[in-house]
């Protein structure tokens, strides 16, 4: 989706607001929102790509106005409602409505306790899948073009590289494909490559001829030259 989150290359967003000795969370509620998000993830009702998409569908004006953790708070509410863990009315009142929901969402046992939380903070996930069926279409050093596509759902192909030519610099392996996983259409793993785009290919002659931007792109985002 050509949404407000796809912001790479815009120029009018103002100076970078640097804060010295910045705290991890500026207010206690930010930490709670962060932790609630992580803890609810343990229910396995959604995945990381669906989670990112839920932020991307925040209306553009709201997206720009909200602080980072306000977006996270908005996302949790939408996820809870969408996946039947709570109703909007319950969230507004802060009180459970026991009859409004399926049995599994009443008096449940949280999947994550304190020990589990410590464990997940130290556990690596794996988004890599076996390189089973299809061989990699592209080799390191090969020239490719990012396809000029405009999917309406979630994608990790930013607008600023679409239609641009680059070079494969690394083959990462086969990875879960976000564009389908975000919509619960399966992992549909694909080869993932690091692709180097010359800064001048992306931004014209005003850019340094030495500089480059590298993106991790899935095979179906790319076509051979």
């Amino acid at each position: 989706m050509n949404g407000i989150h796809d912001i790479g290359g815009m120029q009018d967003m103002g100076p970078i607001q640097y804060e010295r000795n910045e705290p991890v969370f500026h207010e206690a509620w930010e930490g709670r929102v962060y932790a609630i998000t992580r803890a609810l993830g343990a229910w396995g009702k959604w995945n990381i790509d669906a989670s990112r998409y839920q932020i991307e569908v925040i209306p553009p004006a709201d997206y720009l106005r909200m602080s980072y953790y306000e977006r996270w708070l908005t996302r949790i509410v939408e996820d809870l409602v969408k996946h039947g863990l709570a109703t909007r009315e319950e969230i507004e009142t802060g009180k459970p409505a026991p009859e409004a929901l399926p049995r599994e969402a009443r008096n449940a046992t949280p999947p994550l306790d304190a020990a589990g939380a410590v464990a997940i903070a130290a556990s690596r996930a794996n988004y890599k899948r076996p390189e089973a069926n299809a061989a990699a279409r592209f080799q390191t050093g090969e020239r490719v073009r990012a396809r000029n596509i405009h999917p309406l759902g979630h994608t990790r192909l930013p607008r600023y590289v679409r239609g641009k030519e680059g070079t494969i610099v690394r083959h990462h392996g086969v990875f879960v494909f976000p564009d389908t996983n975000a919509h619960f259409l399966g992992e549909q793993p694909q080869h993932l490559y690091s692709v180097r785009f010359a800064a001048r290919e992306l931004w014209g002659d005003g850019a340094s001829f030495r500089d480059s931007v590298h993106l991790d792109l899935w095979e179906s985002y790319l076509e051979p030259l």
Partner: protein
Amino acid sequence: MSLGASHNHDHEHQAVPSDPALRTKALESLLVEKGLVDPAALDALVDAYENKIGPRNGARVVARAWVDPAFKKRLLADGGAAIAELGYGGPQGDHMVVLENTPNVHNLVVCTLCSCYPWPVLGLPPVWYKSAPYRSRAVIDPRGVLREFSLELPEDAEVRVWDSTSEVRYLVLPERPEGTEKMSEEELAALVTRDSMIGVAKVLAPAEAHSVARVNEGAKV
């Protein structure tokens, strides 16, 4: 930043919680009552990222790479495995690639689409990293962005920007500053800043570090 965050500090704060604070409190109490989250798990997660998982981890990785060439070689070949040797690993560090800065090549990491960042080695990202000004301009004007961080790169240096579009996470291995040959691994780790591992700063030798003031100090919150 949010409009609510910019207030002046001359007045006494009123004890009225912000709207998101109230909404979050109501939400947490609902989720606890329904048995959807365990508040002790929330406490443990906040504690982990406030007190245990942060840029000191990455600094130890960098210092080890500076003093141990065999470790550095492993780190550049398989970032995740080498970082795990020091006991670090977790979500958002699932697939790690380490990028070496040299006098001729400067690497800079961004996530234009959201806020991808290597949590196990750097902790949770600072607000500026997640905000529109950095995300939008790091790819189109990296040298201008670095200038805002008081880092002027020579014209003949190559800037490589890494937009974190997949589950691969990038950590910059900054250059070891001159004049630090006699320092211990621990002393070196103390020099390494979060910003240098994102690629918006260089690591300074102790004498330099004292004399440099940030150009953007006036913009700090």
